[in-house]
């Protein structure tokens, strides 16, 4: 019997110590008590006025005990079920899932190589790929349905495009509270009613504050709707260090935590137990080109630190990875996407989104989605860590094969090599073979695989009757807004 053993079932990675997290947490409490935040929503202000918060006009300041109390009520597990009836997305501490980002205005056109506006068809294609590729656990729209009949109701049409191609759970952006309500109604139809949806939510609602410390009307109405229906939601600050947040990572983390905690209190006042997820695209404003960077190493560092904080708070975490500032799928894209995928994965964030994002969150690329599939596989292979049980220590085997033997033909190898990562796109061939196969680059292979998947993969079709009912909700919204 061995005593006091610690076995690492996975690799371990942490940026902040507990003491550092406490510093950041206390600082965020101080921000909410002293600096406060702005809230532009009447019902929310009413809720705060009826509490111990101090409200002057739109300015709300919150004493720490309200925050500590509210923090006790957040769920530590949320399970989503896709339209394929599989409860596949277990959002719980240290369980990592990957997904795309949403709403990219432009698309890299695979035929012309040019940038053009994203369409409904592009979103359906992205949906298909995400459905086909096994490392994607959830789907955000990747692009925006730029050809929707009315910008004011695009979210309903986007959801349709997503559902047509993808059976996996989703994260949805919406225009406003009314839009979110329609999406929720559509979700209930898919899951078989409001009660089924409550037990098996199909999607998480994506909501954001405006850094620094501002909460606009549409964001708050979505938040309150989510609280009312117990719809899983995330309130994810998007601060840019140096522009809408301090230029220090610690300062940015303090501010964005304060923004999160404001929502934590608000949802608690509305309805305790709201399945609220913490979030954050914590990055910097590039000071040469004034762009919001999706490829900076600081994004990886700040995001991993934010995940450390989320675990300490017992909140679930929506993080960022697999994204780049590069305009095309090139060496820069690979380097940046790999870096932020890797560290978000190691940090153990629960939902890692924006996988495939190009050009600092403005350009969509189906090929980027496909290349990331390979990289997610590599990252996961690393995260598995090293098994050190007797079979894996292989002492008996080493003795059996002995000095100067070979392992290729042993049963142990036959059993275990399949634990390795199997590349689909990485080329490990010898030079001559590579040449015979056409001297292809990574990008050539990515392009071929993308085309192949689009040509051959058929997602489980959406039931025709259901489709009609869903479309009715979208059409009714169009009529209301025409």
């Amino acid at each position, binding site marked *: 019997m061995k005593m006091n053993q610690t076995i690492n079932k996975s690799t371990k990675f942490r940026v902040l110590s507990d003491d550092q997290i406490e510093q950041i947490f206390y600082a965020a409490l101080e921000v909410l008590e002293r600096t406060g935040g702005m809230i532009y929503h009447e019902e929310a202000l009413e809720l705060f006025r009826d509490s111990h918060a101090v409200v002057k006009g739109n300015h709300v300041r919150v004493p720490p005990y309200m925050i500590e109390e509210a923090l006790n009520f957040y769920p530590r597990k949320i399970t989503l079920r896709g339209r394929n009836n599989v409860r596949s997305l277990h959002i719980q501490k240290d369980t990592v899932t990957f997904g795309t980002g949403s709403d990219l*205005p*432009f698309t890299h056109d695979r035929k012309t190589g040019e940038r053009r*506006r994203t369409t409904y068809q592009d979103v359906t294609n992205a949906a298909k790929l995400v459905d086909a590729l096994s490392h994607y656990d959830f789907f955000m729209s990747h692009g*925006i349905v*730029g050809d929707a009949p009315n*910008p*004011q109701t*695009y979210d309903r049409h986007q959801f349709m495009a997503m559902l047509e191609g993808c059976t996996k759970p989703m994260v949805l952006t919406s*225009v406003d509270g009314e839009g979110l309500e329609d999406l929720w109604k559509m979700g209930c139809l898919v899951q078989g009613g409001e009660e089924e949806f409550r037990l098996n939510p199909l999607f998480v609602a994506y909501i954001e504050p*405006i850094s620094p410390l501002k909460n*606009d009307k549409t964001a708050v109405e979505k938040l309150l709707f989510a609280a009312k229906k117990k719809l899983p939601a995330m309130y994810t600050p998007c601060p*840019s260090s*140096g*522009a*809408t947040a301090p*230029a220090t990572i610690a300062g940015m983390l303090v501010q964005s935590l304060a923004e999160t905690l404001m929502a934590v209190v608000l949802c608690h006042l509305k309805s305790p137990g709201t399945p609220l997820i913490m979030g954050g695209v914590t990055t910097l*404003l590039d*000071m*040469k*080109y*004034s*762009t919001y960077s999706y490829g900076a190493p600081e994004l990886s560092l700040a995001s991993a630190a934010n995940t450390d904080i989320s675990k300490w708070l017992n909140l679930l975490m929506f993080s960022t990875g697999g994204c780049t500032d590069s305009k095309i799928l090139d060496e820069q894209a690979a380097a940046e996407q790999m870096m932020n995928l890797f560290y978000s994965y190691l940090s153990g964030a629960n939902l890692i989104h924006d996988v495939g994002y190009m050009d600092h*969150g*403005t350009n969509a690329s189906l090929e980027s989605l496909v290349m990331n599939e390979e990289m997610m596989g590599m990252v996961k292979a690393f995260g598995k860590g090293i098994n050190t049980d007797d079979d894996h220590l292989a002492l008996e085997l080493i003795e059996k094969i002995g000095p100067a033997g070979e392992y290729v033909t042993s049963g142990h190898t036959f059993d275990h090599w399949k634990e390795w990562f199997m590349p689909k796109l990485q080329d490990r061939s010898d030079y001559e073979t590579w040449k015979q196969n056409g001297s292809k680059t990574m990008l050539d292979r990515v392009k071929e695989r993308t085309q192949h998947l689009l040509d051959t993969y058929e997602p489980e079709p959406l039931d025709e009757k259901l489709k009609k009912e869903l479309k009715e909700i979208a059409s009714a919204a169009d009529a209301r807004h025409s």
Partner: protein
Amino acid sequence: MDLSNISETLIAGKADELRKMVEEGVKENINPADILNQGLLPGMDAVGKKWKAGDMFMPEVLRSAKAMSISMDFLRPLLKDDDVGNAGTMIIGTVAGDLHDIGKDLAAMMFEGAGYNVINIGIDQSNENFVDAVKEHKCNLLGMSALLTTTMPRMGEVINSLKEAGIRDQVTVIIGGAPVTEEFAREIGADLYAPNAGSAVDITREYLQNKN
């Protein structure tokens, strides 16, 4: 007073010192237009050049722009409307339904740095608010920002409203924001499009020079 000292202080982004120097210059009876054209504007030109060369970065550039703006607040009332270099008034805002503000704010600061009297009317501004602001402040430059595909069309609507109000010719219209393109600007009849705040001032200046 050696006006090149004003340029140097501006490049260094020392706002208080710069303002004092400008005030002193006026006290010494230096023509305000000269302070602008031989002190401040050459300073900002140098800042722009250094930035493009990668010798200066956003926080430094915007400190200089802020210093410029503070000095201009003092100098502007002393300038004559037709003084060379007197840039005029700009209205800038983000269109209705759109809450993205930082890009528009950066553009605003750059125009302040170029000597404009910039009135930043904020985010989520209705079409009427834009038109009213143009009328009220008799501005000669209008900047609009939209970061959402869904709110971009508002910019075209504002331009149409300006036409209806008969004041379209009063202003040069420049637009920007991540989903906005040159082509879109042409479609809706904006005069100018700038892909970033840095180029916006140059693009505007060049356009106005060619126009006159």
